[in-house]
């Protein structure tokens, strides 16, 4: 990208920020029409007139920027709506979403579906029905938005529809393969568990647990061997006895 890109007030969410020089930040944003965009927000950390109050995750923003290479320069930022009201558990889930987006969405992929997937997940987290289910559904839909959608309709070998009372081995990037006999390996699922995820119906504990197991496997090829930091921190929090 050597051409100068100038974008006016595009819908965006800030996913991550880090301090840059004395008073600036580098912000990583998910934008509606330009995918992931990294920008220098000059002077944003100044005590007076800085934009730190606005440059927060989970706050719907409108951002203007110019860029020629990978790293652009933020020109303007304004809030578009009140911040999603997340607390404790939902807040940490939100951080997890942010890391997943940064890790999985390729730079330069102007993916509008990924954006709407993300903003929908924030709305669902805020509604507070089930944090775990909202996160699982985000993972499921986000994979779809990235073009890695799971095939939970048919058995891969025979093309026959998945049957609720049959058992299947889930193979990442391939799909569900029918298994004979009574096996309880980690990658084997009941057909009904696959169907619940496909139908986005994770109301009961069993299908939620199965969805978690399955999506962890589905995400693995795209995450590689670099573990997610938010996942490790969450684990440490649980180990420290923090009830969220």
């Amino acid at each position: 990208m050597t051409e100068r890109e100038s974008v006016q007030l595009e819908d965006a969410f800030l996913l991550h920020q880090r301090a840059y020089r004395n008073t600036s930040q580098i912000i990583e944003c998910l934008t509606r029409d330009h995918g992931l965009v990294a920008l220098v927000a000059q002077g944003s950390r100044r005590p007076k007139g800085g934009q730190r109050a606005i440059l927060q995750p989970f706050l719907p923003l409108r951002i203007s920027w110019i860029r020629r290479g990978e790293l652009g320069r933020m020109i303007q930022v304004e809030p578009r709506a009140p911040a999603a009201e997340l607390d404790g558990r939902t807040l940490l889930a939100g951080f997890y979403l942010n890391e997943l987006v940064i890790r999985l969405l390729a730079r330069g992929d102007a993916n509008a579906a990924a954006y709407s997937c993300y903003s929908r997940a924030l709305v669902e987290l805020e509604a507070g029905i089930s944090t775990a289910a909202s996160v699982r559904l985000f993972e499921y839909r986000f994979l779809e938005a990235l073009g890695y959608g799971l095939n939970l309709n048919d058995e891969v070998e025979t093309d026959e529809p998945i049957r609720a009372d049959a058992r299947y081995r889930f193979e990442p990037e391939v799909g569900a393969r029918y298994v004979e006999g009574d096996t309880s390996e980690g990658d084997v699922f009941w057909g009904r568990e696959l169907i619940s995820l496909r139908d986005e119906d994770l109301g009961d504990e069993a299908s939620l647990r199965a969805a978690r197991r399955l999506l962890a496997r589905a995400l693995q090829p795209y995450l590689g061997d670099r573990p997610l930091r938010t996942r490790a921190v969450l684990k440490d929090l649980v180990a420290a006895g923090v009830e969220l």
Partner: protein
Amino acid sequence: MTQGYSPLLQRLIEALQCLPGVGVKSAQRMVFHLLDKDRAGAERLAMALEEGSRLIQHCSLCRMLTEQEQCSLCSSERRDKTQLCVVESPADVIALEQSAAFRGRYFVLMGHISPLDGIGPAELGLELLEQRIRDEDIKEIVLATSVTVEGDATAHIIASLAGKHGVRASRIAYGVPMGGELEFIDSGTLSRAMSGRRDIEMSRSEGEA
């Protein structure tokens, strides 16, 4: 860039660049100033740095920077031992002390939770904090973490730890600053101020009501 300078001079210029926001240019300026205009200052700085980096550690109770095993705030008998204020940095402790608004003791996290950067409970010393909540006679944890999403998350986590041990947790109020005029305040601050509003207590004399 520093080529042509003598080795010692080069080393000095490079060493100063470990400071945040100091590049080659400002490092050069500092070095020339110290060597040309203020040798005595340079020696004081060198000694203070040498001694400081050798002797200053974290307080074993609150993680404040100090050359003692326990900082003066923790070892003071005059502080209220039932209140513990949790802050992000040593500078926050100093700011609160200058306001003279708090008479209890502190705990310094040296940061806030930042899951995407891998900063979690271990980095913030939460184990030590929980041990204090468990072992000491603390009645209230005052959360004075920054008013950011990460600061909020940190406050929630510590409030949860406090709750586990039956200790009350409070969060410092935030909103419109002193002398603040509403039209110049950003919408995020205003909405916090609005949602955190509180009743005006009217003092009523005996005869009334």
